């Protein structure tokens, strides 16, 4: 039985990846947006390296958060419109698992590239090299949370005509705790303070979100579909 689920999940993953990779712009645009936002800050605030290093963790995280909002609306939109979402509900494999597969794909296409270009962003903003590993760890732990919590909002608003505005209204407040913990960790790394506890807290936050949100997303998908 479990093997059956596994093959179904693998098929789902493959299909979602294929569909998403067909539209490369959806993957590249958020990254370009991220670069733009990051480069706006030195222009607006002035290129003083101390100031930039001081605000770098917050700026990178806020930009990551906004970039992840960009493609969120489309996470379930196309599947909802062509009826694939209903088929997903009817699959023998449990809906939370199927939804987790979708979250994973979303993370692979938005979260992972973000983590990969983060060193470049950190360089642009003069973040001290010692804080870079911590920044990467927080992004690695935090971006799945962005995808998962964002999926809840996307599933809730998928059947709305203009869901985008409502979506960001719902999702942004839920991102704030993540932002607090992540930036606090990077900031203490900048000052050379111990960060292990904060990283553990972030990790537990991430694990908790990833285990619980699939159920919320599944419930939301069911509500939206019928």
């Amino acid at each position, binding site marked *: 039985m479990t093997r059956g689920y596994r093959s179904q999940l693998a098929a789902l993953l493959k299909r979602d990846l294929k569909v998403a990779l067909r539209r490369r712009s959806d993957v590249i645009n958020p990254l370009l947006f991220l670069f733009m936002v990051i480069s706006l800050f030195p222009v607006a605030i002035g290129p003083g390296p101390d100031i930039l290093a001081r605000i770098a963790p917050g700026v990178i995280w806020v930009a990551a958060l906004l970039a992840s909002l960009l493609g969120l609306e489309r996470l379930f939109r196309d599947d909802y419109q062509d009826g694939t979402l209903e088929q997903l509900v009817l699959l023998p494999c449990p809906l939370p698992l199927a939804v987790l597969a979708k979250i994973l794909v979303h993370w692979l296409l938005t979260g992972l590239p973000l983590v990969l270009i983060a060193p470049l962003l950190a360089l642009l903003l003069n973040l001290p090299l010692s804080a870079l590993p911590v920044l990467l760890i927080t992004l690695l732990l935090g971006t799945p949370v962005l995808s998962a919590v964002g999926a809840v909002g996307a599933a809730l608003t998928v059947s*709305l005509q203009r869901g985008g505005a*409502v979506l960001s209204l*719902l999702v942004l*407040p839920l991102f704030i*705790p993540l932002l607090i913990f992540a930036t606090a960790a990077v900031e203490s790394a900048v000052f050379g303070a111990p960060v292990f506890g904060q990283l553990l807290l972030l990790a537990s936050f991430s694990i908790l979100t990833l285990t619980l949100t699939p159920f*919320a997303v599944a419930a939301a998908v069911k509500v939206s579909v019928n």
Partner: protein
Amino acid sequence: MWRWLHPYAKGEATYQLLGRWLPWVTALALLSLTVGLVWGLAFGPADYQQGDSYRIIYIHVPAAIFSMGAYAGMAIMAFIALVWQIRTAEWSIAAIAPVGAVLTFIALFTGAAWGKPMWGTWWVWDARLTSELILLFLYAGVMALYYAFEDARTGAKAAGILALVGVVNLPIIHFSVEWWNTLHQGATITKFAKPSMATEMLWPLLISLLAFALMTAAFVMLRLRHEILRHELHRPWVREELLNPKSASADINSQQEQS
């Protein structure tokens, strides 16, 4: 117990029950509100550190506590609505959210007005304040989602799911004072936990806590009654109730006496 609870899944029975309780709850709320606030404002002693500015506590703390209490209540109702598909529970989400939002606003505003003389600033991005602000956003999100759908039931369920997800914020508000002590220490609660408040100050606070609880309940009951009417507008009993209320209530009373 299930037999006793079951009729209240229907709108009309709940409407009548709430109507019977509402006057009592309202009267008690007004009474305790007057006693608590007058006692706190005029008769309680001044604080030895903060002088008379501390009197804001008699609205600030109750509003803050019940802004969270209302959210917890709303989340419980959302859970009941989603699991047992009970419509009165769905409607109570819409009844509780605005009340909770107003309480949150009061807590934030009085906090700002208290912070200005004590901390020297209206607002700091301290964890308590930030997470309470998130609570306000969550209430706004629940209301927006509730009314965003053309089909009212879908809206209620979607809002319910959001309310349940947002429960994460409650422990964050509660423990924020301990978690985020790096940026700003001395949030309000720790100040009062330390000297375990003098009894002459504590009593009026307890009474106004009771008052805010009753007031929240009264508002929710009033709004839930209207929410029931709104959703059952096409039913004959609602028409009777709204267009000629005297005869309707008399009818129902006599029916109840018979049965």
